[in-house]
């Protein structure tokens, strides 16, 4: 059986696959593939050279995969994109629905300034060109959770274009071997979210919740510059961090604040791109990577076996770990795009073009937003490396967990311990403990001060390393860690994790500020 085999994956830009004994086969799904090019195995696709660590065996042909992503990020704003309804994901169904959200006839959209600012800030953070004039369009389709029968989006002239997103992936087995890659940001557009359909199969009913209808989304389109699931996942992770740093989106994938669709195709290097499929319903970075890699394999397998790739939408079944075609009765949709007549062109200004005497509430100054941009994760990491002599991968790890960097910095403020030691403690012992207890950093029973204290004790060699590790895990019912300073070695056993036992001989109480514990 000619099972396609994954020959090797990154460090190249692309995955190289080799179908065993499949040298002469051509996927009929590749519409314009030239079978007589004779340029087998040559890497002439795209700008990035194809790095081949291993030469394909004679008679085998390489495959290159191309992955592009479309991301929908819910904008963190108090009200919806075009109405005054509140945005709150925990509200009872249909409790946050304005007349506009329910598409009552005669209602009109009014653009939310905060959403525009979020889009501009995101565009600036991704090195985009911010269009001084952008337009809104209607995209039509009938669906029960789309009350107006169209979605207002920015198809023709989006708010931001031509940016880039730098992300890092490991290239070897070791974390330390990280390389930075860049993916192009084609565009960022503002658009409305739809409502939610809740299918009650028992009663064959569909219930509609319009709370989400009209919530502002940033659609970020990433160029097909990626070639495997890992790259896509890393790019998404970095985008998440950027959105969170900007505060433009909570970007939590599990909660649907960040939704990713992947466009995937495979082709022989040197030949035109293959037919692509779109994979939807990817609600975690891990599943995104899995789904993409599965889909790449599937396509290769399909083509190697003389099959054809259909331009279709597939969804990822995370239980089975595979992609399946989505049932689409309608077939191909024609969205009948049309300019949204109720919204004038969105005009943005910079400090040079700001109209004199303009009401500051009515105009948006790009330069002013640029000044307000917070430090981006990339810069934060560089600073950590510079300031503490930290290894780059540790800087990544510190940023990857919400609140961990702040925790680290707070520990640093209060301890005399070496940064290296603190980093190691925070990333290994502390984080390991949290993972084990399934806690978020904000839920940690250990305060930065407590850890700082502990590290100081350790530094003074007042306690041993293993005792300190145990001490960290101790918590009491009063949510505090009790440590006796200058504890003699024979008392160490008292510090073992003991389900809230009090440490005898307490001299000081380090209070935990967090309510949980």
């Amino acid at each position: 059986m000619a099972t396609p085999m994954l020959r090797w994956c990154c460090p190249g830009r692309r995955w190289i696959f080799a179908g065993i004994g499949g040298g002469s086969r051509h996927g009929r799904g590749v519409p314009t593939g030239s079978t007589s090019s004779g340029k087998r195995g040559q890497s002439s696709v795209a700008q990035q050279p194809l790095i081949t660590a291993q030469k394909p065996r004679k008679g085998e042909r390489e495959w290159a995969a191309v992955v592009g992503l479309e991301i929908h990020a819910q904008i963190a704003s108090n009200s919806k994109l075009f109405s005054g309804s509140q945005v709150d994901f925990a509200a009872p169904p249909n409790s946050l629905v304005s007349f506009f959200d329910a598409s009552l006839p005669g209602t009109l959209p009014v653009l939310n300034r905060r959403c525009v600012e979020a889009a501009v800030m995101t565009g600036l953070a991704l090195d985009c060109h911010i269009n001084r004039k952008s337009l809104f369009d209607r995209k039509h389709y009938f669906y029960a959770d789309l009350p107006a029968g169209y979605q207002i989006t920015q198809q023709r002239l989006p708010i931001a274009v031509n940016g880039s997103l730098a992300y890092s992936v490991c290239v070897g087995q070791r974390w330390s071997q990280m390389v930075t890659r860049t993916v192009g940001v084609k565009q960022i557009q503002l658009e409305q979210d739809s409502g939610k359909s809740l299918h009650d199969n028992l009663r064959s009913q569909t219930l509609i919740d319009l709370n989400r209808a009209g919530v502002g989304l940033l659609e970020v389109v990433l160029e097909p510059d990626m070639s495997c699931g890992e790259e896509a996942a890393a790019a998404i992770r970095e985008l998440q961090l950027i959105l969170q740093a900007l505060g433009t989106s909570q970007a939590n994938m599990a909660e649907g604040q960040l939704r990713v669709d992947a466009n995937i195709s495979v082709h022989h290097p040197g030949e035109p791109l293959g037919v692509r499929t779109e994979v939807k319903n990817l609600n975690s970075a891990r599943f995104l990577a899995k789904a993409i890699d599965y889909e790449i394999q599937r396509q290769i397998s399909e083509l190697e076996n003389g099959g054809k790739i259909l331009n279709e939408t597939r969804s990822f079944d995370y239980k089975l770990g595979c992609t399946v075609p989505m049932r689409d009765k309608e077939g191909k949709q024609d969205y009948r795009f049309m300019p949204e007549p109720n919204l004038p062109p969105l005009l943005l200004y910079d400090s040079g073009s700001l109209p004199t005497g303009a009401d500051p509430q009515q105009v948006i100054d790009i330069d002013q937003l640029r000044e307000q941009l917070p430090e981006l994760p990339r810069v934060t990491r560089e600073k950590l490396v510079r300031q503490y002599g930290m290894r780059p991968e540790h800087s990544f790890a510190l940023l990857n967990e919400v609140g961990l960097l702040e925790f680290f910095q707070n520990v640093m403020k209060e301890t005399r311990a070496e940064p290296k030691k603190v980093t190691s403690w925070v990333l290994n012992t502390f984080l390991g403990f949290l993972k084990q207890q399934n806690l978020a950093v904000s839920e940690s029973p250990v305060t930065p001060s407590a850890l700082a204290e502990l590290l100081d004790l350790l530094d003074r060699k007042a306690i041993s390393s293993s005792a300190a590790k145990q001490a960290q895990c101790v918590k009491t019912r009063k949510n505090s860690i009790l440590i006796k300073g200058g504890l003699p070695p024979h008392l160490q056993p008292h510090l073992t994790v003991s389900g809230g036992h009090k440490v005898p001989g307490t001299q000081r109480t380090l209070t935990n500020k967090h309510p949980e514990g």
Partner: protein
Amino acid sequence: MLGRTLREVSAALKQGQVTPTELCQRCLSLIKKTKFLNAYITVSEEVALKQAEESEKRYKKGLSLGDLDGIPVAVKDNFSTAGIETTCASNMLKGYVPPYNATVVQKLLDQGALLMGKTNLDEFAMGSGSTDGIFGPVKNPWSYSKQYREKRKQKSHGENEDSDWLITGGSSGGSAAAVSAFTCFAALGSDTGGSTRNPAAHCGVVGLKPSYGLVSRHGLIPLVNSMDVPGTLTRCVDDAATVLGILAGHDPKDSTTIQDPVKPFTLPSLTDVSKLCIGIPKEYLTPALSSEVRSLWSKAANLFESEGAKVIEVSLPHTSYSIVCYHVLCTSEVASNMARFDGLEYGHRCDTDVSTEAMYAATRREGFNDVVRERILSGNFFLLKENYENYFVKAQKVRRLIARDFVNVFNSGVDVLLTPTTLSEAVPHTEFIREDNRTRSAQNDIFTQAVNMAGLPAVSVPMALSSQGLPIGLQFIGRAFCDQQLLTVAKWFEKRVQFPVIQLQELMDDCSSIFENEKLASVSLK
């Protein structure tokens, strides 16, 4: 009292010659008497009487809210009215009671106006006759006027007068008829291609289409968002100015309204027109124009010239493309705007529950009439990916050229354009329905729709009666946002031509007999 203008009756209210409740009751009783006109879809009697009571209290305390306090008004049934059914004369919205007021309705109510009811129209304002709504056609009050009847008696004998009634024009025919038949003092219409000016001309009232962006569309159930403007139907130009002064201005709920503050204004009485330049667009002299309208048009031009105004022939070269361009843009927006009527959130829903798709299809099949469905179908065709460039984009370009025609003319020093409003006077219903809706709309909107594409203000002012004793109106078109200047010129003209008041006394006296006859004839309508 009911025959007075808004200004006059407002003065009478202030002087205590009449109370709001008396006025309201008189209008209500006339609405009942003229029910056969079919001008109203919903008569909001209770609401009006309650509002009258409130108004009366204010007058007693000397705390009148202004010129509109206690004045009976009517609103076209495509403006949302909180708590009052708003149907758009369509099965789709039968029984739909909006939870909010359109901004223009709210503004009228805030001024103390009394809402008499919701007026009839073509379904979703798609038409130029007020004949194509589910509640049946509107009858032109002039059909029953002394002026028309006397002429008819001379001409033809023995014909059944009542079966030969005239259309009002449309689509705001109900509002025009309501004002013309004295059942209210002002009414709101909507104007997308001439829907306010056309019935105004046919019913002998003043129909104003303000500049696009001057008056909020929030709550107006749209036909073509980029062309719709709330319009006014009044007995005189001054009244139009009064109502416009109240309606105009920025609305945070409509992003296409102008930001600049608009102050209420009163029109100056122009005495000298020698500094005016009146443009006569030569392309508007079409063969289809009736000789009577043509001669009145030149008479009007001569009037201005004889009083010292400069009257020049101008060219709007892209006029002939306006109808087809309008068709593409209108149907495309209609296709889009009507997508929301799917039976889910509000309005009609069919009994089919096989699938959501089947429910959509049946609901829309049952809810919309042929005219609406035809426009949806055409519009979706024009918006298809393969057609978009060839139709929609081209039509947008032509629209720009049409708009530029006007800009060029106004830049050349013309202050106001003078044109006919309609090809002829109102025609009998029997004659009107010989053509289909699309052909009729194309014919009847010829002088009016280019104005909507350019977003300009325009007003139809009744000039004289035709040989048949029917009103003929002429249209003035002004520069964008120069509505006040436009109305000032219109007021001067109105004063000069002294259009006769409709003589409905006969109707009022024996309307009960007409009503009885009509009742039999119109049983099948509802």
